[in-house]
């Protein structure tokens, strides 16, 4: 039997097949038969989401919601954009794309610890000791992977790591973590030829299945499922999507000659082969010290170029209406500037950027007070953001997942799509 489980066969059914085909007769191993036929075919209008993750917690008061004239205002000036809002002067390229992008200025998310905030923003649930909630990329993978039969590579890719876990949705929806250089380690089976690999896998399958059948819970099966995906990946031409260096040098230059730029370009290439969720990690935002120099000289120019290039590129390829871009971190930073000219952790009033995917662009949703410390409009939770993304991607909001313990979990924690963006 093949370790490649037919997509339309449920696990129990599959297991019966495994049990029925006894080890006495190991048939020829169908290892590579799934490929190539439809790999080149790229379906139009496939929905996708790119999450730009600003690890450490970005000072959004210096990026998306400036407070000129306030004691908390800091050193930067706001500039006008192609949309109906102003943003930081250090993001001039994004400013030109703001007709397609919007900002939510009234996030209020209560978790100001890195680990807890990261979890909350990725999953829409606060940490709970008895259940591990899936990152939203895993939710998207779980919802859309079954419809994308020609997709041979993982449906949730994390460029640079830190994307959380698939939790109760299982390891097959876990983020596939890669470097932005596009080199996937150990993907090449070296000198082992196909026939030999098939023999090894046939033997392996007997041991693997024996342990699965020994009644030790779900983990042994998850191990097998992940191997199945890994074997698919080893042989897929879609792996070329990771090879950013194959891209036209002019386009590479537009995205920026740095890890983040390459990660954003990789995201576009992955979307083109059908990957529905890509998270690109840009770290270094935990700016307790020297916030203004670090932002203007390092973080913001990189971010500005990468986001603007992706937006422009998607637009020119006619893909922007199908691809949602979200840019956020685990929280914002204190409006008050500390004695080290830094800003500390702050979750109660901050901003994020969201656009594309057919959402309304050029809009500022919600507002904070003149010093940025309080919210003067409706406030939003991560579940509202993910509900908005779900709506844009055509994922029904009435999906309810069931945790291993049988507890029902609403998609996006029951959040509501943001009216100004979807209306």
């Amino acid at each position, binding site marked *: 039997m093949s370790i490649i489980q037919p997509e339309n066969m449920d696990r129990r059914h599959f297991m019966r097949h495994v049990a029925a085909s006894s080890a006495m007769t190991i048939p020829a191993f169908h290892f590579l038969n799934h490929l190539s036929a439809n790999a080149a075919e790229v379906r139009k209008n496939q929905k996708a989401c790119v999450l730009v993750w600003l690890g450490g917690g970005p000072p959004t008061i210096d990026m998306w919601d400036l407070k000129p004239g306030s004691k908390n205002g800091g050193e930067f000036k706001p500039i006008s954009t192609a949309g109906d809002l102003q943003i930081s002067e250090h993001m001039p390229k994004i400013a030109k794309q703001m007709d397609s992008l919007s900002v939510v200025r009234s996030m209020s998310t209560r978790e100001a610890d890195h680990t807890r905030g990261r979890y909350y923003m990725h999953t829409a649930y606060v940490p709970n000791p008895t259940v591990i909630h899936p990152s939203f990329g895993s939710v998207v993978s779980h919802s859309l992977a079954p419809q994308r039969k020609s997709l041979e590579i993982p449906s949730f890719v994390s460029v640079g790591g*830190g994307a959380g876990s698939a939790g109760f949705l299982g390891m097959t929806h876990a983020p596939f973590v890669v470097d932005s250089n596009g080199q996937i380690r150990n993907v090449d089976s070296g000198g082992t030829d196909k026939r030999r690999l098939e023999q090894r896998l046939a033997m392996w399958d007997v041991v693997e299945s024996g342990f699965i059948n020994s009644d030790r819970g779900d983990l042994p099966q998850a191990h097998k499922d992940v191997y199945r995906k890994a074997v698919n990946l080893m042989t897929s031409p879609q792996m070329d999507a990771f090879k950013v260096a194959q891209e036209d040098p002019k386009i590479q230059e537009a995205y920026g000659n740095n890890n983040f730029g390459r990660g954003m370009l990789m995201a576009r290439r992955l979307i083109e082969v059908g990957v529905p969720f890509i998270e690109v990690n840009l770290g270094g935002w935990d700016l307790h010290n020297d916030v203004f120099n670090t932002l203007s000289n390092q973080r913001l120019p990189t971010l500005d170029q990468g986001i603007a290039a992706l937006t422009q590129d998607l637009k020119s390829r006619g893909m922007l209406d199908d691809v949602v871009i979200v840019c956020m971190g685990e929280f914002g930073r204190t409006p008050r500037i500390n004695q080290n000219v830094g800003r500390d952790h702050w979750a109660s009033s901050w901003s994020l950027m969201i656009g594309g995917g057919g959402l309304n662009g050029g809009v500022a949703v919600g507002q904070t007070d003149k010093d940025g410390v309080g919210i003067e409009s409706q406030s939003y939770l991560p579940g509202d953001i993910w509900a908005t993304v779900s709506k844009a991607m055509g994922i029904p909001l009435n999906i309810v997942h069931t945790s291993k313990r049988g507890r029902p979990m609403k998609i996006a924690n029951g959040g509501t799509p943001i009216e100004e963006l979807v209306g």
Partner: protein
Amino acid sequence: MRALSLIFGLAVLQITTLSVRAAETSDYRLKYDTAVVDQIDLLIRQSWEDNEVSPSEAADDITWLRRVYLDTVGHIPPLSVVEEFIKNKDSNKYQQAVDEMLDGDSYVNNWTTIWTNLLIGRQTPDRTSRDGMQKFLREAFAKNRPWDDVVYDILTAEGHFEENGAVNYLLSQMTMRDEGVQATAKTTRLFLGTQVQCTQCHNHPFNDWKQSQFWEFNSFFRNARRVDHDKIDPNTGQEVDDYSELTTNDFSGPVFFEKRSGLMQVAYPKYFGNDVEFDNGKSRQKILADAIVADGDHQMARAMVNRMWGHFFGYGFTRPVDDMGPHNPASHPMLLEYLTESFVASDYDMKMLVRWITSSEAYRLSSEFNTKNEIDNPAAGEMPLFSHMYIKSMEAEQLFDSLMVASNASGMNRANYAQAMRQRNQWLQQFVTTFGTDENDESTTFNGSIPQALMMMNGELVDTAVKCDPGTLLHQVVSAEEKDSKKVQLLYLAALGRNPSGRDLAAVKKLMQISGNPISAYQDLYWALLNSNEFIFVR
């Protein structure tokens, strides 16, 4: 015995001590303090009764041996040890096996690895000496120093980061100028099993901690001062890192913090809200360490007992093990209290704690569910009842070390240990991502996801294990004057710690037939075993 001395790389001396101990069997009663083990068993049985579950059967001998090896010394048992254990008919062989492990180098290596990762992380923060940290820990575990002494030294250390390796814990928490915020959060988590990081900014919504308590605790770390020394590189003329040290400054005032309302508040050193004794000339860290050691509630001991139980069983009495408190009640409060008291009474004897846990009835149980304990499924979020063992995936270090054991005919020997550790550290980096935050927190892709599967299938480690070069275990087995069936059995014992089933044997026969070449068939078999779920899970 010979086999054991080989893996631990010790010579004749070791063998002698072991046989002397084996003769004094009556010693075990005293040594193991069976009363403690009996009480553990009693309290666990009580919870089975209360929850109407029946325990699974005991695991067979070699499954238990594989488990206790992985948990105690961090790798699978070498083939020779497995064979020896099967032959040994002494009723004390379980305790003997544990004692041999506790006396060996692998025990020291394993716990040094575990605590280095806990204290400074898998990726060494800037200007922190991993070697220094390890040197301190090696000595602590080799001498079986009482845990309270170890904690005291870690919290109060001063000096050069290689001369007094204990300073590296605080140095690693002070890579950002964060006024000891990270040291506060990490110290309470690691040593007191209490999470306070959220209370930096506000009162905790779930536990009793107040924002003021965070800053009271924080004020203990304000005397610590990191001093980084640079030097000129004679080749380039550039200034480069030399060494770092931890000293004290003359900070003596209170700490100020900002409430959410914007009001500034003041905090003085207090331990869980209680006043501490000030002594002129004594550093704040010493005052804190004294308070922790003198704590009549023994929170440090409780935290360690909970962590150790979690290490051996996969689940502690609270989840996670380092978030204890009224907001997160323990699954077995009486047992937790009993073990805490016993640990204190033993003078914080780490090895004794290992003996108690590994001798318990619950630790012997099979990891298979039965029909009467299906609800005992903490992987699905249920409270653990310890009515069967829970399988756990090997940590990256356990996998590396186990593949070394599975590769080498001589197991792990000490001669190349240092080199193996350097290789291991290098290999590990492919799985580690740091978040680049003030907490130096890391995530790993060694979590059962695709990169791990690719590494197993195509990476160098398994490739080396199946190469069948002279000196490898595979070569030794394959070239022995034995029947094929015996060779197959030996490979199963080496990789999985069990005999092949009928189904396994039929598949192997088929493999031999289609392979044509017996050596490549054995290579393929060993590849399959090492890649299996059964190998990577501690069961």
